[in-house]
C-alpha cells in the first residue's frame, strides 16, 4: 500500500497548493487507497512490462542464452521487414480478418433482430440457448466442431451428401478452412448478441410509431432507426473485433497444433509471435513483433474512432 501513496506524492503536493480542506484530502486518500490494487497492478502488469517490451525489442534477448544479450538497435525491426514468414503471416491474418470481421459484425445484428422481433414467442428461452455456446470451453468447442465438420463422419457432410451437394474436406482444404474457422468462432457470439439485444430494447418505441406514420416499412425502419440507434454497440463490437482478430490464433492452434496447415492458411501473425516467444524463446524479436502489433492496433483504433462521428449515433447517451 505504501508504494501506491509514494507514487502519488506529486499529486498530494498539488492538493496542498489548492488548499483543499482536510476532509476533501481525507476522501481523496481513501479513494486512492481503494484504487491502489489497480494502480499497483497497472504499473506492475501493464506499464512496466510495456516499457520492458519496448527495451527488449532493441536487443537480441533470448531466454536460452540470456548471458549473451546485446543491443541490436533497429536490428529486429529490419529483420521484421525482411522476414518472409512474418510477411506471410501478416497476409494470412489480414486476409482472414477481411472475411471474419464483417461476418462477426453482421451475425450478432441479425440474431438480435430476430430475437427482438415482436412476433417471436419464448424470447427468454431462445436468448438463453443461443447464448449458451459462449460459455463452452474453447478447447471443447473446437473438438466438437472438428467432429461435426469431419470429412467422412461429420454431420455437416452427411447432410450435404444426403441432399446431393459436394461435401468439402472443411479442415484440410485451403478453400474451406476459413469458413470452418469462422463457423467455430461464431458459436461464441453470445455476449455480443446480448449487447445488441439490450441496445435494441433500449430504442424508444415512439421512433418506430413515427416512422410507421410516415409510411416506413419493416426494412426501412430497421435501416433508418434500428441500425443508427444501435450504432454505438456496433462500433464497440467493431473495435473489439479488430483487437481480437489481430491476436487470433488459439482456434487454429488447437485444431492444427500450430502447423500452419492446410497450405499455410493458418499461419496467423499471433501464432508466429507465440512461436518466437514460447517455442524459440526469442524474446527480443517477439517483443518487436508485439510492439508492432500494438502500434497497428493503436492506429486502427484511432482511425476507427475518427470515422465514428460519421456513422455512430450518440444522441441517446447524453449525460
Amino acid at each position: 500500500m505504501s508504494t501506491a501513496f509514494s507514487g502519488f506524492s506529486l499529486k498530494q503536493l498539488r492538493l496542498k497548493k489548492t488548499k483543499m480542506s482536510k476532509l476533501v484530502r481525507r476522501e481523496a486518500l481513501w479513494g486512492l487507497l481503494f484504487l491502489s490494487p489497480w494502480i499497483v497492478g497497472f504499473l506492475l502488469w501493464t506499464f512496466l512490462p510495456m516499457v520492458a517490451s519496448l527495451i527488449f525489442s532493441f536487443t537480441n534477448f533470448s531466454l536460452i542464452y540470456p548471458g549473451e544479450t546485446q543491443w541490436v538497435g533497429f536490428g529486429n525491426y529490419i529483420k521484421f521487414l525482411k522476414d518472409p514468414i512474418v510477411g506471410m503471416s501478416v497476409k494470412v491474418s489480414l486476409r482472414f480478418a477481411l472475411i471474419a470481421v464483417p461476418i462477426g459484425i453482421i451475425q450478432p445484428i441479425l440474431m438480435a433482430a430476430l430475437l427482438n422481433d415482436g412476433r417471436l414467442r419464448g424470447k427468454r428461452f431462445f436468448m438463453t440457448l443461443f447464448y449458451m455456446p459462449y460459455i463452452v470451453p474453447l478447447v471443447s468447442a473446437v473438438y466438437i466442431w472438428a467432429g461435426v465438420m469431419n470429412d467422412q463422419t461429420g454431420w455437416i457432410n452427411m447432410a450435404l451428401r444426403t441432399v446431393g451437394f459436394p461435401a468439402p474436406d472443411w479442415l484440410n482444404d485451403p478453400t474451406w478452412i476459413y469458413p470452418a474457422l469462422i463457423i467455430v468462432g461464431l458459436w461464441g457470439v453470445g455476449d455480443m448478441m446480448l449487447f445488441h439485444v439490450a441496445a435494441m430494447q433500449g430504442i424508444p418505441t415512439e421512433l418506430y410509431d413515427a416512422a410507421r406514420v410516415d409510411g416506413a416499412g419493416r426494412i426501412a425502419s430497421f435501416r433508418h432507426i434500428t441500425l443508427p440507434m444501435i450504432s454505438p454497440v456496433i462500433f464497440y463490437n467493431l473495435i473489439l473485433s479488430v483487437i481480437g482478430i489481430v491476436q487470433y490464433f488459439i482456434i487454429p492452434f488447437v485444431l492444427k497444433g500450430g502447423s500452419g496447415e492446410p497450405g499455410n492458411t493458418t499461419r496467423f501473425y499471433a501464432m508466429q509471435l507465440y512461436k518466437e516467444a514460447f517455442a524459440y524463446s526469442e524474446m527480443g524479436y517477439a517483443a518487436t513483433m508485439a510492439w508492432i502489433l500494438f502500434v497497428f492496433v493503436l492506429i486502427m483504433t484511432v482511425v476507427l474512432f475518427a470515422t465514428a462521428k460519421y456513422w455512430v449515433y450518440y444522441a441517446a447517451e447524453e449525460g
Partner: protein
Amino acid sequence: MTAQTKTSRSMHSSSVIAQRMRPFLAIATVTLFTLMILMVWLSPFGYMVATGLKDRKMITEQGAPIWPATPTTFTYEGKDYPIHLVPTEDGTIHRWAIFKKGREESLFIDPENPEAEPIQWTGRWRTLKRDWKFSPKWGNFTRAWEELGMPLLLRNTLVIAITGAIGTLLSCIAVAYGFSRFRIPGKNILFMILVSTMILPTFVTLVPTYVLFNQIGWVGTWLPLIVPHFFANAYNVFLLRQFFMAIPRELDEAAMIDGAGPLRTLISIILPQAIPVIVSVGVLHIVWAWNDYFMPLIYLATKPKLQPISIAIQNYNALYFAQPHMVQASSLLGLVLPVVLFFAAQRFFMQGVVFTGVEK
C-alpha cells in the same frame, strides 16, 4: 405489433377469420423459423453426445445410424446370425436373421418363430439394411474420466478458478468503490487509462511478464494464473462501478453520519445491494478460468500434474485423434461444469452482460 396494424388497415378484406388468423400465423412462422435455427445452432451438442456414446466401430460402419447403436443378432443353435430388414412381396418388412447367404437367394430365420423351416428369400442380401438397436456406451465416459485423470484436473482447475475469483472480487470491488464514490484528483484520467487497457494486445505485456515470472521461479506454478487477478481488471471494475453508481448515495451518507468509515460503508451498505452483480463477476470468472487455455499453455506446459482441464483435454485429444468417440466424450467432460453452472446461475450471466451492454 406491426402485423396487427397492417391487418386493421386492410379490414375490408372478405374473410374476417383469415384476418384474425394472420397475427397468429405470423407468430407461428417466426417462432418456428427461430426454432429451426436454434436446432442447427445446438446440433453440435447432439453430435457430441451421440458420438461420445458410440462404439468405435460404429462410427465408420457403413449404414450405421447417427445415434449410438449396435447391429442386432439372433442366436440360433449356439451361433449368432445378423438380423436384416427383409422386404417381402406383400410390402411388409420382416426382421429376419440371415442363416445361409447366397448370391441371388438366401435362407432366413424368423426369430419369432425359430422352430419353423428357414425361409427362402430371393434377392441380393447385400442390398438389405441391417437392424439396429439403441445401445449407448456409457463406458466411454468413465474411460475418459479415468484416462484424463479427472479428480486431479478438477482439483487443479478449481483451485486456479476459485482463488482467482476471490482475487478478482476483492480487488475489483475495492477499485470500483474507489471510482464510484470518492472525489480523487485525476480520477477521470485514471478511469480512461483503466478503460484503454482493454484494447491492449496481450502479447505486449506477456513477453516481459513471462520473463519476470521465469526469473522469480513462478513458471511451472499456479502463481502466474492466480496472483495477477488480485490487481483488478478493467472489464469487471467497469461492470461493478456501473452497478455501484446506480445505488443511491443517500444511504451511504446516512451511514457516514452514523459514524461508519468508508470500509464499513462498503461492507454494510454497498455490498448487500450489489449481490447480483458480485455473483455475476464471481461466476463469470470461474467459467473464464475453467475455459482459459492460453495462460496455462504458456505457464504450465511442462507440468502435467498441475495442468487444468483445458490443457489436459487438448493433450488427450492430440493422442486419441483417431478415436472420435473418445474425443467427444472428453470434450463433454470439459464442458459439463460451465454449462451446469450457466443453467443454475443463468440470471446472473445474462444480467452481467446486459449491465455492461446498456452503457456501451
